[in-house]
């Protein structure tokens, strides 16, 4: 209660420093937010490409329908498999005609074999998994051939790995810089009041008592800065959507986590700065 009052007083006594602090926090987190936006969109793009990973097994002509149906049931129960579709010869022809437009007349029923199309669950689309599922499907007597675009799957996996590692490294770098900048800002706020802290100690204030208003102040600054950063990021994504490419924004939880992260950085930053300061006086 008193701490809250003191924290508010601190804002009132040094409005410029407080506002500067909030702006600094906002911009450091904005940089993190922009990076996050890029990362989220790259990840989504890769995921949507990955969705097209599919295994196609061509079925020998004259295979009895119930054998194929049994195999479809079997394959559908593999843990990696999301869905299995049967593509009959007619379907294949229709599809080929649709996709190939002006050459449609070249095709003849019977020219294209029937097949089953297998899609994998997210998380099971790595080259190894795909290969292992393909191998299992290939063991059916009536399966002539299994295709899954091996080279393409491997390239995709490589891109995803590189993007993941780069994302983590860059994200850590951005976050570290943000934490350092925010820490410095808070240190300044603490140093600006070092005289006050010394006098508090002199008249017998306990460390906790001295620390509390700073913690509240740091927390509030973190929330305000984090909120402002979120707003800036959101505006940026609107602008990008309108003028450059269509992107998606953070899911709600991630946005909340970001703002809370700002608050926690503010809280911890204040705690550490005051603690360090107290140990020296």
């Amino acid at each position, binding site marked *: 209660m008193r701490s809250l009052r003191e924290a508010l007083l601190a804002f009132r006594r040094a409005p410029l420093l407080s506002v500067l602090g909030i702006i600094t926090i906002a911009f450091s987190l904005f940089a993190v937010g922009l990076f996050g936006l890029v990362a989220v969109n790259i990840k989504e793009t890769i995921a949507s490409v990955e969705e097209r990973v599919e295994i196609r097994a061509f079925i020998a002509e004259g295979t009895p329908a119930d054998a194929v149906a049994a195999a479809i049931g079997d394959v559908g129960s593999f843990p990696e498999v999301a869905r299995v579709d049967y593509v009959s010869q007619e379907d294949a022809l229709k599809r080929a005609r649709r996709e190939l437009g002006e050459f449609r007349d070249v095709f003849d029923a019977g020219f294209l074999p029937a097949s089953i199309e297998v899609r994998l669950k997210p998380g099971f689309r790595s080259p190894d998994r795909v290969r292992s599922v393909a191998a299992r499907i290939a063991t059916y007597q009536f399966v002539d051939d299994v295709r899954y675009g091996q080279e393409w799957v491997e390239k995709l996996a490589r891109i995803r790995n590189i993007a993941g590692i780069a994302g983590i490294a860059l994200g850590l770098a951005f976050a570290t810089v943000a934490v350092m900048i925010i820490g410095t800002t808070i240190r300044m706020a603490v140093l600006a009041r070092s005289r006050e802290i010394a006098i508090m100690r002199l008249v*017998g204030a306990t460390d906790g008592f001295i620390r509390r208003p700073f913690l509240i102040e740091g927390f509030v600054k973190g929330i305000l800065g984090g909120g402002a950063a979120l707003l800036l990021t959101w505006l940026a994504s609107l602008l990008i959507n309108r003028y450059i490419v269509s992107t998606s924004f953070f899911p709600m939880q991630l946005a909340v986590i970001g703002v809370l992260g700002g608050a926690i950085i503010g809280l911890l930053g204040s705690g550490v700065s005051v603690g360090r300061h107290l140990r020296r006086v």
Partner: protein
Amino acid sequence: MIRFTDVTKEYPRTGVALTDVSFHVAKGEFVFLTGPSGSGKSTILKLIYMEELPTVGEVRVSGLSTVDVKRAEIAKLRRKLGIVFQDFRLLEDRSAEANIAFALEVTGAPRSQIPSRVSRLLTQVGLASKASSFPRELSGGEQQRVAIARALVNEPYVLIADEPTGNLDDRATRGIFQLLREINASGTAVVMATHNLELIRRSDYRTIEINRGQIVFDSGEAKPVQPEELV
């Protein structure tokens, strides 16, 4: 109440500031600490309010010993010590009464009691009319009175004053000294470091003189009764 036992204090960079200092201050006593600049007066006071701890020896203040004191206990101790300095150490952005109230808030005094205690203290130090003035609107003597009021607000058993008149002219010095005498007369012990020999001469309080970190003279340590006084 305050007892130094064979205290040696060595600072990390500047070396030995006190050597083998022992003395005792009784309840309600008035003690001058005097000696040349750099002799160790402020160091002795810092050891009393435990801003510094002895390198060798022990300082005991109202039941707490520097040997095993904890940080939280030091905070509690300071609520029972009043401390004033040459440079007043007031918060510039708060009025006189807010400065005094601050020392009460810090100790968690009930909020309802704060205004009446503050105004009683302001009256005691003769500043009732300047309650809402800010430090920059007060003379040096008046600022020191605010600082003394703040030091007294928690009813300490000892007032520690490090050259409280060092920045004041003669008139203000006499006023502050008079105030300290009154405070002492009401039962609070006073330990005052000063260069002002005039003050020491005009009163007959106990005087401890320090030179190069050692006690070279102590006028009145709870002296054993002299034989001639018996007859």
